[in-house]
């Protein structure tokens, strides 16, 4: 029997949000393909299916460019987890999360999980510099080093401006401290009207990663997969409880929820 995956509706949705050039596509590539490669600016969005145990989890990579900003809330609709990504060497990228992206998550599930991820940690943190994957060749590293010298958007950042970026492997100034991310996480919870005690703690949900070296990337995705499992099971349970008979498995109760979501 050919074991062709049917176009099945994924059990849960996970969305990567964040300003352009923070490395959303690279994070996803690193996780799915175990590689760091040059990516071009994402157009619109893309998605991957990840089999996690018996469940299908769709991971949506969104475009960070302002132009596609309007599509964000559509991608977030019904999301079980949102990864808010920033660049640790760029204070503005963190600020943008709060200013532009947080409101996009209004359409996500009420029990959606939020993770704050500071990418490019290899540029500031020696321990993230260690390759975790053996398949990262030094050659492709130098390539990306050059690719990384894209114009640093110097923003009206509240922290002192970064010292000039070093080109030869010296560490860049870290503009976003972990505490800043933790503080933002707290504000996200408040924005969502969530009780800080009842929610997942900030130290579990704030990550610093490097798509280039693979640092913390698997931990990020796998933590989130494990955390969304309960919501998958709950959703499944609700569907089983509903008296509706689904003739097609892949279209489970779509009409029903369409109505309820906009009351």
């Amino acid at each position, binding site marked *: 029997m050919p074991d062709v995956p049917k176009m099945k509706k994924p059990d849960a949705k996970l969305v990567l949000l964040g300003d352009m050039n923070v490395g959303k596509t690279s994070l996803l590539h690193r996780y799915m393909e175990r590689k760091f490669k040059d990516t071009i600016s994402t157009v*619109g969005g893309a998605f991957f299916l990840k089999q996690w145990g018996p469940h299908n989890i769709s991971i949506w990579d969104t475009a960070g460019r302002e*132009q596609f900003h309007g599509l964000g809330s559509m991608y977030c*609709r019904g999301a079980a987890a949102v990864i808010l990504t920033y660049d640790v060497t760029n204070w503005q990228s963190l600020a943008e999360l709060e200013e532009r992206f947080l409101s996009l998550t209004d359409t996500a599930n009420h029990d959606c999980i939020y993770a704050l991820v500071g990418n490019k940690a290899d540029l500031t943190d020696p321990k993230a510099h260690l390759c975790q994957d053996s398949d990262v060749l030094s050659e492709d590293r130098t390539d990306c080093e050059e690719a990384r010298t894209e114009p640093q958007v110097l923003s009206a950042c509240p922290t002192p401006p970064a010292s000039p970026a070093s080109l030869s492997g010296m560490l860049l100034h870290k503009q976003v401290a972990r505490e800043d991310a933790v503080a933002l996480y707290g504000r996200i919870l408040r924005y969502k009207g969530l009780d800080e005690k009842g929610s997942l703690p900030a130290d579990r949900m704030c990550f610093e990663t490097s798509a280039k070296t693979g640092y913390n990337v698997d931990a990020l995705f796998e933590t989130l997969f494990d955390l969304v499992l309960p919501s998958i099971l709950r959703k499944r349970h609700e569907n089983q409880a509903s008296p509706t008979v689904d003739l097609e498995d892949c279209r489970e109760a779509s009409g029903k929820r*369409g109505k309820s979501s906009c009351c």
Partner: protein
Amino acid sequence: MSVKAFELVPAVERDLLMGDKARINIECIECCGRHLYVGTNDCFIHHFLLDEVTSSKGRLSYSAQKLLHKYLGLKKPVAELRAASALERLIVLCDGIVFLVDMVTLESVPSAAGGGVKIRGVTAFCINENPVNGDPFCVEMGVLSSKRRTVQIYMVYEDRVQLVKEVNTPEQPVAVSIDGYFLCLALTTQYMILNYNTGASQDLFPYNSEERTPIVKRISREEFLLAAPGGLGMFANAEGASQRAPVNWSESVMAAAVCFPYVVALDENFITIHSMLDQQLKQTLSFRDGQVLQDVEGKVMLASTKAVYVLVPLPLERQIQDLLASHRVEEALVLTEGAQRNIPKDKFQILHRRILQQAGFIKFGQLQFLEAKEHFRKGQLDVRELISLYPLLLPASSSFMRCHPPLHEFADLNHLAQGDQGKVLRCKNFLISYLGEVRSTDLVNGCRDDVDTALLKLYAEQDHDSLLDLLASDNSCLLTDSIPWLEKYHKYFALGLLYHFNGQDAAALQLWIRIVDGELRDSTRSDLYEYIVDFLCCSSNMEIVWKYADWALRKDPTKGVHIFTKRPVCKGGSEVNPDEVIAYLGKHSQALLLYLEHLVLERKIQKEKFHTHLAVLYLERVVSLLKTPKDEDQLTKAREKLQAMLRESHLYRVQFVLGKMEGCEELLLERATLHGKLEEHDKALHILVHKLRDFPSAEAFVVWASSDRDPLYRQRLFHLLLGVYLHDAPSGCGGSSEMEMAAVDLLNRHGEVFDAVRVLRMLPENWSLQLLRPFLNRAVRASMHASRTSQIALGLARSENVQLLHDRLKERRKPIFVSEKKGCHLCHNTFSEPSVVCLPGGVPVHVHCAAQRVRDSPTKRQLTNSSNHT
């Protein structure tokens, strides 16, 4: 980078429509079966009959036949045409008015209520292709009007339209599409989903209607395709979520349609075709002055301002083959698998398998074996397709024919590798591992011979360790085909295994013997001789065993005899008759000896013949060693064996062996043993004491001869020895004191065996008490012990007697009733005579029952025994 997924075929040429009138343009088209309707900017509807024509070369073309054209009389362009085939009506939008015309006559339909069927002030309308209302004789239509922020839902009947619903929108709607209750709307600044039944709405995303014309295209149940900012084609479902990643169009896309698995979009100059499966641009066709793009019944129709075209999808298989031809395996597979739901299941399986197999060969050709294997496995490749690539691997008898059309472009492995021996080797190693994996699966059903033979050839050629495993286990290697290969690579041992597997043990043995004898060279096993012995040992074919055992025994009798001694004892199987073996081993004396030892000592076969034979063989060996006194050590060992045999066995013919020993003066000890066996203890002791003067042996003899006998016998033997020591001593000679010392030692060591009184009488008067002290001590102690034991027994018996007397007295006091109605406690019969026995406690029983009881009672029996002692 491109695929040819579609072909643009002209349907209605310019001259058929407007001739050379330059200002007439096509505005809209509609197709319904073979009927094609074209609306123009000069307010005409043209009606054509469109026929597909397939040329002899398989090329598709269309022939259009003009049936009718009709002026609608409004002097404005015909903006929109939609067919309602069940009603035989065309719904027309022209000059802001929606009205119905007859599909055949193109005449405007008068309303049933008089007056025209007209809706005024309309900017756009759409038909619901998936209406909730199931009435086949009406069509649901969504209408946008120019003045109001509303969407109106009408039911269109043959001769009337009826407004059924009107829903408000937050902004002026620009475009609409319907599925079920869901309206997908393009408003002035955003797209939204609106449920006209419940009024619930869902914002999708913003856009700017001034910058670009919106597209809202229903593509399947509850799924729409929208033109998003940045030239994106976004998918949205009725819930307002996106389940597919967007496709990347140009900013100027004016129309789009889906022809699974492709999204076709039309912009000013091009038709672009993206795959919905991987979002990649697959094909671009140049198309100037594009006006309309519309999917109709599985194909896509297009119109430029002057002509109508059909975008005909190429057969899926052809697309896939094109992809494979350019080695784009992954894309081909994505396309195949994406088409699964559009193809009947059985047909899909066949197609999918074939594509996987082809993909596998492409990967194989690129030496990407992991992927190749995966594809072969999933595609359930007939393994022989792969084997046939390797010259000479398939057996000559194989009926295999390569599949047609071929799965790959390679003639054979050499063609593939272009003479690169490294590549050839890698391919061979791949085949080895692949065949090894599949040979135990269902994949090789029906061609097991071919697979196993190919594997054998590869193993032999590559000098692979698994060759022997293959042959030693269940296999289907073809003998005729394998022999030359194995011989070519000097795998004679393996060939022997194959012979054996095919039941030709004789051939196998001949081959192996030739290897051992050095005629053939094959170093597979350094212990091949042992292997042969083992083989013969386990072989149940006695004919073969008899035939080849001789060779093995000549080579090494000690190991060769294992053929017989180590035979597995099989239950029910025919045991080899030992007599036959013994007869067979006649000329191999050493092997015979070992075999008899095996029978007698290991298997403990209790047969006089074997025991005597073995004893005689031992004896002969000792005798022969005696004649050539070289190795004392060997002699001692041989004698020990003989002695042990003579002592331990009770079965051999003593007289016969004794006769054989005549004239062997050296073997006195053995003779003594034999005399002992014959109970001629005096002769034996005579030899031991007088001839050998070996007193320890004499003592050991007595102990041995009296073992397992009763104490009296034992005593008799010890007295006999003592007598020999004391009386047969040649008086006066120096030996007498020596023998006396032996006698003293005997007494002191085994004092308890002797009858002390008799001994004391026998002993010479002059012996000192001191000399015999240990003996006397022991004798006195033994005697004391006996006397005390008997006293205890006596006391116990007395007390029992008193006890019984007591009971008797007690019973006498009261009467014991015996009647004919009373039963005996032992046999439960009634009493018939007055004489009874009273058991302790006054229980009357029959006399014979009481007697019986006493006889049976174990305690009583013991008692009688012990009384004997006392």
